[in-house]
């Protein structure tokens, strides 16, 4: 459904953030996007949702296609209308507004009142906690409730594709598990999800497919189950081996290049 072809982004015309990323999110699939700080994960989401100009970033190469149509020159409003909704990192609720107002702000692009009603009911059944706190200020909710409200707000636009930026950030372990099952539930209802996470364990356990981003490039792409088994991922993101803290995935790329070179020599 969503295809990124060789997407390159620079900030303020000089600082490269993405250097030719290709990625695909098929219909109704959860894709995890892993990577360290500064790898370009958030930039990739901004490129999709049209928020780059706000950060003085520009798409300098490649295209982004939604169902075959280019969306990389459209306004954020248009992109939301086409069915892509984003949950920003750090939740970013409208803290002085009530829970209900936050949700209706998420449906601002929707003109049809019955569609809004339906989305609202869906959010309420997905997050019964929010139903109890409809008219309290968003800023007074707990961290977990705030993350649910942030996701609910994005769902109010009834997206085909949900972009989630670090939904587990700063949450207690049981809440991380709760978020995980919510993602699975949203996906089960037919919404595709692009999940950006530092918590690789959680991300890969819910995703079908995973990409690893490093300094603006995709260094690894594989089904999530396989990434979970991959030795380097285990060491680097899951910390499943002691010692050797500063391990870079860079050598993965080298290994692959070496592999290609080997093949060249063999043929």
């Amino acid at each position, binding site marked *: 459904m969503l295809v990124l072809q060789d997407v390159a982004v620079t900030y303020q015309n000089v600082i490269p953030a993405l250097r030719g990323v290709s990625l695909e999110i098929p219909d109704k699939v959860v894709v995890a996007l892993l990577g360290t700080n500064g790898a370009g994960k958030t930039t990739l989401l901004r490129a999709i949702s049209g*928020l780059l100009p706000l950060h003085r970033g520009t798409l300098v190469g490649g295209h982004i296609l939604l169902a075959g149509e280019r969306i990389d020159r459209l306004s954020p409003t248009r992109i939301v209308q086409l069915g892509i909704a984003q949950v920003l990192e750090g939740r970013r609720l409208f803290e002085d507004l009530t829970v209900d*107002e936050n949700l209706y*702000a998420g449906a601002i692009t929707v003109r049809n009142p019955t569609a809004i009603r339906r989305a609202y009911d869906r959010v309420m059944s997905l997050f019964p906690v929010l139903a109890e706190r409809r008219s309290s200020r968003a800023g007074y909710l707990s961290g977990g409730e705030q993350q649910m409200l942030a996701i609910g707000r*994005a769902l109010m636009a009834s997206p085909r594709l949900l972009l989630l930026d670090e939904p587990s950030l700063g949450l207690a372990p049981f809440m991380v598990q709760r978020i995980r099952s919510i993602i699975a539930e949203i996906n089960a209802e037919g919404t595709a999800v692009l999940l950006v996470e530092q918590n690789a364990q959680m991300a890969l356990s819910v995703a079908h497919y995973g990409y690893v981003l490093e300094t603006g490039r995709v260094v690894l792409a594989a089904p999530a189950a396989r990434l979970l088994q991959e030795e380097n991922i285990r060491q680097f993101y899951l910390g499943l081996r002691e010692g050797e803290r500063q391990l870079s995935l860079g050598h993965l790329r080298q290994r692959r290049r070496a592999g290609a070179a080997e093949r060249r020599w063999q043929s």
Partner: protein
Amino acid sequence: MAYFLQLVFAGVAQGCIYALIGLGFSIIFKASQVINFAQGELLLVGTYVVASAVLNWHLPFLLALPLGLLVTILIGLLFERLVLRRMIGRPPFTVLMITIGLDIILRTLVVVGWGSRTIPAATPFTVTSGFNVAGVHLGSSDLWTIGVTIVLCAALYYFFRRTRYGLAMRATALDQEAALAMGIDVRTVYALAWGLAAAITTLGGVLLAIDSLAIDPNFGNAALVAFPAIILGGLDSVSGAVVGGVIIGLTSVLTAGYESRLPAVVGTGLHEVTPYLIMILILLIRPYGLFGSRKVERV
């Protein structure tokens, strides 16, 4: 007692004018974190258009007023289109400096277009119109000022609380990027804020001109008088602008009414100082104003 009530009535009416002018400031500040220093000049252009529509083109006041509002709304929208749109995501300070530039341009245009002479203001009332209740004279223009302010505040309250665009404006004010991510068209929000603020401020200016009977190219400084009102109420609070306006209006009119009884040392200009004294006093106690939120950015 009648004298006191007379002063209170006049003070509330005066305060409503400050409130209207102040509303213009706070709507723009809320939407874009920018203090619009061209506010006074928007008001100036508006009152000049209304005055010359009545005096030179002999339009009825009720036609001239919407014409004046229309002109300032268009200036606001044009400014959004040509300048603000390119400034989304830039520091508010940049935009603030640009509004100072706009202020100078508009003032110059007024002098070029109308000259620097004082001209009579347009008014639908005669000075003595109105009626008396218990020895207090309720002037028509003051009654209308108070009435218009109340209706407008109710309409604004409805707009911000109950409509899509009102919600979009409040959301944008709180978090621009999150609003964009929701698909809220921030450019429309800015245009709306500037159009609305221009119209409300101009309305305040026209009412003020009715009170002061004449206008000249310095009339825009009137907006500065509204400044203590919005600082007092809290820069980012719409209801604060109204309460602040009324407090400042009452203070200034009551001191003006009683200052002749004070010792001669104090002089007769005290009423021009008291609004600022009140402002400083309240800021010492609540630095973010009566209704303002604590996070207001200092520029």
